[in-house]
């Protein structure tokens, strides 16, 4: 079924179908799909993907029967269970959770940083069927853990979430994606950080082989705010992590990090994009990947420094280890610089595990497999040891051990 028919057939289940402006916007999107010839070579969002699965899909959505649970068991700690992308409303003096409404739609869709020909973001706008909005109130310091649950097989979740950190607030956000059924989620998060606010965003992804996860984040940082994102991808199914960050006022910072562990026939596409639009901002983009068997990965990183963004510091690093003959890794670290007083650099390496290091360990009586495992652990140790949340660190260690047990 083509996209237009699919959309028209399921229109009644899709959010904001009655709103005329949104309607016109969606018609435009449908036309993009009609005109586009899906140029895999030049469209970053399409590389290594089996397009048919995503363009020619069966739409299915269930409004959750069990309502989501919001617990406030400890002070300043909230745990949320989001079911099929939805979350019930909640309000206290620190946070407010609501459903997304028509007016939020523009925040999601009229965004210049996210590429116009990103078909997945366009699909998300077209078939939107879930989402929530969380506001952290002024000068509060809280922790939120969100578990994303999908109740049935073959569901297609198209979700838009909005996070707003008000002035001086600080949020530790842990998101878990651990789905064992054959569904697919397409999520767009829009994050706004007001003056002097801070957000530490952890994403743990560990889905079963038939679950597809497409996650796109757009964050914008105002004066003195800091956005830190750490992505841990242990999924056995396809995952796409595209994360955009805009530094719109002075002294703001963005730090986008990720590690992915791939095996079998799995594919992962990753992208980070930082746009420096103001003076004295800092950014950092670090992605590391370990690829085994016939897995494939791409990583696009991009630092854009506007003409006014003097005194910028922007760093990128991409590292990949190929464990097998059939794995492949594509990396494109891009710098676009229009200001002169900047310090920007990027580095990228791809290679096998250092043979000399293996030799050293083996000469001390270690088996080859044990040596390989130790070296993989040390490759990502810097990122793991920087996690200051004990519970998180434990979860990730366990998953790492599980991945390593399959390495031969």
């Amino acid at each position, binding site marked *: 079924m083509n996209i237009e028919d699919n959309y028209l057939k399921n229109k009644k289940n899709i959010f904001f179908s009655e709103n005329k402006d949104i309607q016109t916007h969606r018609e435009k999107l449908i036309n993009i799909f009609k005109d586009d010839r899906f140029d895999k070579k030049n469209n970053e969002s399409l590389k290594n993907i089996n397009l048919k699965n995503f363009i020619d899909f069966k739409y299915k959505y269930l409004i959750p029967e069990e309502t989501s649970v919001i617990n406030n068991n400890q002070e300043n700690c909230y745990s949320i269970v989001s079911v099929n992308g939805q979350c019930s409303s909640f309000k206290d003096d620190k946070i407010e959770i609501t459903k997304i409404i028509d007016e939020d739609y523009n925040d999601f869709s009229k965004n210049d940083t996210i590429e116009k020909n990103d078909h997945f973001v366009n699909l998300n706008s077209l078939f939107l069927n879930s989402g929530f909005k969380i506001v952290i109130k002024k000068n509060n310091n809280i922790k939120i853990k969100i578990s994303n649950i999908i109740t049935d097989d073959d569901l297609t979740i198209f979700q838009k979430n909005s996070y707003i950190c008000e002035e001086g607030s600080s949020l530790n956000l842990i998101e878990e994606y651990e789905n064992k059924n054959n569904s697919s989620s397409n999520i767009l998060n829009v994050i706004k950080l007001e003056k002097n606010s801070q957000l530490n965003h952890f994403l743990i992804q560990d889905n079963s082989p038939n679950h597809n996860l497409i996650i796109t984040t757009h964050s914008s940082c105002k004066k003195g705010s800091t956005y830190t994102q750490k992505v841990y991808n242990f999924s056995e199914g396809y995952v796409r992590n595209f994360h955009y960050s805009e530094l719109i006022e002075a002294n703001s910072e963005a730090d986008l990090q990720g590690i992915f562990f791939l095996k079998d026939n799995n594919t992962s596409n990753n992208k980070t994009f930082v746009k420096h639009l103001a003076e004295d901002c800092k950014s950092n983009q670090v992605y590391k990947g370990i690829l085994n068997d016939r897995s494939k990965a791409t990583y696009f990183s991009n630092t854009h420094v506007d003409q006014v963004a003097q005194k910028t510091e922007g760093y990128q690093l991409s590292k990949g280890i190929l464990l097998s003959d059939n794995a492949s890794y594509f990396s*494109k*670290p891009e*710098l676009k*610089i229009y200001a002169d007083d900047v310090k920007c650099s990027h580095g*990228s*390496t*791809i*290679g096998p595990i250092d043979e000399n290091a293996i030799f050293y360990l083996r000469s001390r009586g270690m088996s080859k497999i044990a040596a390989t495992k130790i070296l993989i652990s040390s490759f990502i140790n810097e990122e793991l040891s920087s996690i200051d949340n004990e519970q998180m660190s434990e979860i990730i260690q366990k998953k790492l051990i599980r991945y390593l047990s399959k390495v031969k």
Partner: protein
Amino acid sequence: MNSETLNTLNSYSKNKYKYGFVTEIDDEKPKKGLNEDTIKFISLKKKEPEWMLAWRLKAYSKWKKMKEPKWANLSFPEIDYQDIYYYSAPKGFEKKPKDLSEVDPKLIETYNKLGIPLEEQKVLSGVAVDVVFDSVSVATTYKGELEKLGIIFCSIGEAIQKHPNLIKKYLGSVIPPGDHSFSALNSAVFTDGSFVYIPEGVKCPMELSTYFRINAENTGQFERTLIIADKGSYVSYLEGCTAPKRDDNQLHAANVELIALEDAEIKYSTVQNWYPGDEDGKGGIYNFVTKRGLCAGKNSKISWTQVETGSAITWKYPSCILKGDNSIGEFYSVAITNNFQQADTGTKMTHIGKNTKSKIISKGISLGKSQNTYRGEVSFLRKADKARNYTQCDSLLVGNQCGAHTVPYIDSKNNTAVIEHEASTSKINEDQLYYCRQRGLSHEEAVSLIVNGFCKQVLQELPMEFAVEAQKLVSISLEGSVG
């Protein structure tokens, strides 16, 4: 930024192009525009055999179906291919002069203005110069000496007539005419260029050199260069360019093919200083060049060195296909852009054979309102066991209206291959400037010194004859640009 820096920058950006003069020589042209008749005219003028004309026409039919590649970070008005002369040869050159005394004295004068006294160069530097003035080879020196060794160094036109077997075998083997629209265009209408063949086991005793010059107005120069290094041979080839000042944009789409067989080595150096347009971005050469080398045999090596200071638009990616086991590809580049110049340049290293190695050093310097992009691709194919790449690209920004961009594509499909890439972008270090000024250098001198130091890694790869010229060129580009 202090006022002094601004003054210096302004003085740079006002520096006039020193080589802007036009030599008045009558020339013969076909009608403007590109069609089959133009191609037949060129082929006839060059007295080419039938198969060559057929080859050209085939390329032309491919070109008609193609569009210009659009992915580069460049903006320029649409090129009107029907508004260009595709052939221009100074009159009376159909009979080649035997020595310099038979050459039009005006031509000799032109070279003297450029600072290449042909006669002197012959004696002093021992360089055999094959000068291309517009489209016809004018004088070739040291030919006899090369002939003794069995080296063929002549214009491509001559090679088509005298060595058809080599041409048939290798022309278009590295850059197929249908590769992209500029290669198809060149294949259809190329007029002249150099042909070099180094026989088995011969080390070419001198640097082979060509000076290209675009002279007649509105003449796109489409040269085609083909260099073949047979087993165990070595050759170093120099190419340098300056063009007189023009207001109309001139199109230049050259193709350069290198083939290195087993144990052979080719070193190809370019200094490009074509008219970059004036300070308002008017005029200048459009330079769309395809350069590609094939390391066909085991242990072969191809090394590209380029200093790019001219042209309004530079679109150039000298690349290496590392097919033979243990072959080596190198790329050293300095690209300086000023005023409204745009450069999108880099390289492509394709590792196919085992133990292949490549090294990329690229230095970009942007001044004025220019845009300078490094675009490079390194790919390891499945069978490229133990292949190795190292890439370093640094950019220097002078002034706050220019842009410096780095777009590397890195693709690895082999788990024993190692690839390293690093890049940095910054402005001229204030501490270094302060240090130089404290020791009595003027601001301009200090900037020039620092920039020359920044480029040193690349400049030292140039052969002696070029290194001096290149250093001067860097200073001149800065002088009018950074000084």
